[in-house]
């Protein structure tokens, strides 16, 4: 059974200018331990879709089922770990204080917390920075702290909203590799929003291409690159083929393109 099921999810914003349809009839099923990327131009509602899954935004129509329950119940059960584009670290807490925050909120005992935080910091390679403050770290390191924090409760689902969007290309590629290692170790299911085609193809088992205003699923591309993916993956001909395929789908305007197929049904 799918771990995340979206059934005809819509989102309409009301403003003075009238109604704006941000998302229209988005249906998608994500299997356990899958890595699914949402990609599309700005304003296609990909971030909104992620927030709807995380119960941070309410959909105007349709249903979201996570782990067999509504998104709101999944949030209260703490099934999610979230990483935003900005690291969103608390300046008054050290690195270990920030990573341990979710465990504190849950009310885990201190000893367990410390042990778990250390394990996570080792995982993201920040073992030597436990007592540093966020503002003493580089942007890439801050984002690794945010990832460690999202993983510390061992959530079933990781929601990532352009987590590497503000980083330089080299840091981004290195963190891509680290993220895949972490996911392999934890078995987390990932829903990942990005506007980088290469990043989406490199990381994902499937890439969901969205159209802008209103956001609809244009195509779902299966990424059949072998696991585990390494830096060599980026040089494979198949990698370039898939990147090109996604780019073509993104370039298509569904209203003008002749012969463009209907939005592919979700599996």
């Amino acid at each position, binding site marked *: 059974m799918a771990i995340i099921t979206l059934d005809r999810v819509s989102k309409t914003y009301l403003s003075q200018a009238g109604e704006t349809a941000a998302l229209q009839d988005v249906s998608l099923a994500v299997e356990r331990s899958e890595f699914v990327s949402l990609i599309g131009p700005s304003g296609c509602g990909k971030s909104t879709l992620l927030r709807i899954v995380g119960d*941070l935004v309410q959909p105007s129509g349709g249903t979201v089922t996570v782990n067999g329950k509504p998104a709101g119940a999944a949030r209260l*059960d703490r099934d999610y770990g*979230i990483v935003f584009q900005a690291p969103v670290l608390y*300046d008054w807490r050290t690195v270990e204080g920030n990573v341990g925050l979710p465990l504190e*909120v849950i009310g885990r005992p201190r000893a367990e917390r410390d042990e778990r935080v250390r394990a996570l910091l080792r995982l993201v390679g920040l073992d030597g920075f436990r007592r540093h403050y966020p503002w003493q770290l580089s942007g890439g390191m801050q984002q690794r702290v945010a990832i460690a924090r999202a993983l510390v409760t061992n959530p079933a689902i990781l929601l990532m909203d352009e987590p590497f969007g503000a980083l330089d290309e080299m840091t981004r590629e290195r963190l891509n590799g680290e993220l895949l290692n972490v996911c392999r170790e934890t078995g987390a299911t990932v829903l990942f929003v990005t506007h980088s085609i290469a990043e989406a193809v490199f990381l994902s088992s499937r890439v969901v291409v969205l159209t802008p205003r209103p956001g609809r699923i244009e195509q779902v591309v299966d990424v059949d690159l072998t696991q585990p993916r390494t830096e060599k993956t980026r040089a494979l001909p198949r990698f370039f083929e898939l990147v090109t395929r996604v780019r073509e789908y993104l370039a298509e305007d569904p209203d003008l393109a002749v012969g463009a197929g209907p939005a592919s049904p979700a599996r």
Partner: protein
Amino acid sequence: MRLIHEYLPVAGVFVLGLLLWEGLVLAFSIEFYLLPAPHVIVATLRQTYPFLVEAGLYTFREALAGYLLGCTGGVLIATLASRFPTLAGVALPYAIASASVPIVALAPLAIVWFGIGPGSKIAIATLMTFFPTFVSTLRGLLGVDVRSLELMRSLAASEWQVFWKLRLPHSLPHMFTAFRACTTLAMIGAVVSEFFGGPVKSLGVYIKSTASLFQTRQSWSAILVACVLGLTLYLAVALIERLAVSWRIEMERSRA
């Protein structure tokens, strides 16, 4: 090493200012009752010392009581207001506008309401420190960014946890900025209130009565005592700030 770098220039400027003052008074042979030279003020202080310490502590106690009441009240009411944002939205413009109300102008009325004793002075000092504390604290509590709140929401944190783990620590630096500024306000409130009536052994009454007799060197020595007491309170609060929000001070230093 840092001590030398930071404090030596400050101390240097202080000494230089005193020398300049002394020099100008002598050079232009300014009458001592208009502006006494520093050495005259210090000499006067030596004579009036026991009296001024007693009067100073009396006034200081009023200021401190008002300070503690005003700051505590400001933080508590702001906390309450932050739980009811509609109320906060209504209250905040008035609180900000109150900054333009000359609260010391109420001092004569405070004597009518609370009597000639310490009550009226404490009331003015309280009022003067309440509003800045309220405004700063509320801004800090409500100025938390949306993403930080979303993070808490995604963790299914309770309102109580959001307050203790996010809003309060975020507001703490704002609070301390107000706490520091309020030390001076409390002293002003107490001294000025005493101008309108109070016991003989208080700084305000002493400054006013000596000045009206042109015994300005006595007035100046009392002003000096008021300065020292005000500065002591300021430094004490600054020290607590260093301990309470050390992260913030380090952060600002690293960005400077």
